[in-house]
């Protein structure tokens, strides 16, 4: 199946894009998608533990089961004010 990961703020600079498409095996979980993304873009790895992830329009835990066409959002914390 194919999913899209939308990247926000500082993550966009890490890959020079605001979204990445991933091909994943059936039954893949959110954590598998993130690991697949990190394997392709090692520069993002240090940010991953502090990021919030959502599937569609809702927060999702790492074991959330993905479906074909899902849109994942990966949102790092931002401190500016």
């Amino acid at each position, binding site marked *: 199946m194919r999913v899209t990961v939308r990247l*926000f*703020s*500082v993550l966009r*600079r890490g890959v020079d894009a*605001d979204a990445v498409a991933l091909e994943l095996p059936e039954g893949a979980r959110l954590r598998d998608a993130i690991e697949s993304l990190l394997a392709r873009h090692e*520069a993002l790895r*240090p*940010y991953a*533990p*502090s990021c*919030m992830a*959502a599937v569609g*329009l*809702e*927060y999702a835990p790492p074991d959330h089961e993905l479906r074909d066409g899902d849109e994942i*959002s990966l*949102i*790092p*914390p*931002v*401190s*500016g*004010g």
Partner: protein
Amino acid sequence: MVKILIPTPLRPFTGRQAEVEVEGTTVGEAMTALTTRYPELKRHLYSNEGKLRSFVNLFVGDEDVRHQQGEATALAAGTVLSIVPSIAGGAPEPLARPTSVLNKEEIARYSRHLIMPEVGMDGQRRLKNASVLLIGTGGLGAPLGLYLAAAGVGRIGLVDFDVVDASNLQRQVIHGTKDIGRKKLDSARDRIADVNPNVRIETHEVMFTSENALGIAKDYDIIIDGTDNFPTRYLVNDVCVLLGKPNVYGSIFRFEGQASVFWAAHGPCYRCLYPEPPPPGLVPSCAEGGVLGVLPGVIGTIQATEAIKLILGQGEPLIGRLMLYDALSMRIRELKLRKDPHCPICGENPTIRELIDYVEFCGVVPHHEEALSKDLTIEPEELRQKLERGDRFVLLDVRNPEEWEICRIEGAKLLPLPDLPARVVELDSADELILYCKMGGRSAQALEFLRGAGFRKVRNLSGGILAWADEIDSAMPVY
């Protein structure tokens, strides 16, 4: 007779009645009686096809009628039927009571508020009786202070210890050119007093810390997070959870902003969203990464809007929702959040019961470059002498190309920190290397990386190019 409880957003349609008594033996009959008496209510509760709208929940006692017989659910005499719009976390009661009195000047000033049913005299009195604490009077604090004062919030507390710098004026619209060098609190107080002299301003010229935070925050209805660093953001969150107060959150980076209302009694807190702070230095601040000047205007006014709604008890608060604003694509996204049952401070078994050391929690080592031992740093004067003598060494600028365009030290080579791992092969570990960035933090990271890669003759310019401009080259523009 059956009693129907009307939620705040629907009270304008029941002549302000919070409770209405009607005849009816089923939910359907009672609702028909209600909407016959108050026809305006009908289109808010029912679709054109006469079906109850999906966001309207009806409860008999504490049971949702969907789990009973729907509109056919029987009602005994004296039963209480509640109409509950499905708002994440529920619609909290107004935070302030309408006890203040408005004088003639205030009635004229707030007239555009007073003629709207959602505010009215009652709401404006609530605003006057309300108190808000702004942590930070920078990019977010500037529009917050101006709009909350203009709206008539009676008491505004400001926490800051900074002075106005020329580089603030591109976004911190509460301060002016004449204020450069003044304390931000003095500048903000003068401007707020001009916008609305009715506002009581309380200034707290301190760094917000675990030692003073509870004492400062306890006297305010709402806490607004307009800080610029992670330790203070976690501190503000924990203070709000421990005191049971709402935390109106906003944060900005370059062209993007986030906003939410964290209120543990009604929804998730900041730690539910971000349990773990990022490693220090990884997420740049506005000073390092830059920020579009109008961005804090957008996010700060969203925070001000949410604070005013909480005071009035009107509308749907941004509780349990994270708003993401992207100025470049001009897109707004909204993500539903979830309260984390394992949250260390607002979860079912909290492990944080008092304020902690937030600097340590975020792993921040203040003045990164000072942690480097003396033989790994070079002072600007020594660098000047080396350049003058024509010593053989490589001067490496690890800032971004945009910063290089503003100013640079003559003879330097640009190699931005993010590109360093890929381009390290361009460097020779036999050469003597001197690194610099804006203030010394990023070049210290570059130095650590290079030492790990086997470079031994590498030093860091103490204080970065700002120190160079200050001590050696006063004609250099700084940013």
